[in-house]
């Protein structure tokens, strides 16, 4: 399942959905708001385009790495330091596939999904990655 949501991410629910009798390995990635002297982070999405891109990335990962299940949830809105920005859960028969699939999804997401982060500190805000 792919979801772009304002709500807190429930990793537990995602893992429940990705569990399978055929899986021997599940690899999870959580991106969290790091304290780089910031107070909050604001996440913005081009929701429809991001949803479609994440679904394409998920399909690629599923077939390339023979995943049994792959779940991606990305939050939007205002997040405090320490909170989860996104979660990816991949299950597979073997651990090599689960690690590679999870890694593939996060790398492609960062390159391709129309999502932006603004770091909010004492001195105002700054969009991440913009020159």
């Amino acid at each position: 399942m792919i979801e772009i949501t304002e709500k807190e991410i429930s990793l537990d629910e995602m893992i429940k959905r990705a569990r399978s009798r055929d899986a021997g390995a599940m690899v999870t990635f959580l991106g969290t708001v790091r304290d780089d002297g910031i107070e909050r982070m604001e996440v913005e999405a081009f929701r429809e385009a991001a949803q479609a891109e994440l679904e394409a990335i998920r399909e690629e990962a599923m077939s390339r790495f023979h995943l049994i299940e792959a779940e991606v949830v990305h939050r939007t809105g205002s997040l405090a330091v320490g909170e989860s920005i996104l979660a990816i859960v991949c299950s597979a028969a073997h651990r090599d596939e689960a690690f590679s699939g999870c890694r593939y999804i996060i790398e492609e997401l960062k390159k391709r999904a129309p999502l932006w982060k603004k770091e909010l500190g004492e001195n105002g805000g700054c969009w991440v990655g913009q020159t």
Partner: protein
Amino acid sequence: MVLAFASFREILGKEREMRLLESATVKDLLEELAAARPAFKEAAFDDTGALRDYVLLMVNRKRIDPTRDLSRPLQDGDELAIFPPLAGG
């Protein structure tokens, strides 16, 4: 319809409907926006009037290549999205 995100949303607002002349191109639309909003001109174009490298564009949710596709004509109902480099996750 023009959609703007992140720093460009802060300048242009999230959505705006634009009326275009028949056979107007992506470039025409960007220049119209620049004429209406100096802050957008500053953010999106360099001194020579060329689109800055980091400006990303989608027409109807498909990425277009600014070095090749600015002359693409827009049609009634097309959706142009303008945004800075991606930074999800």
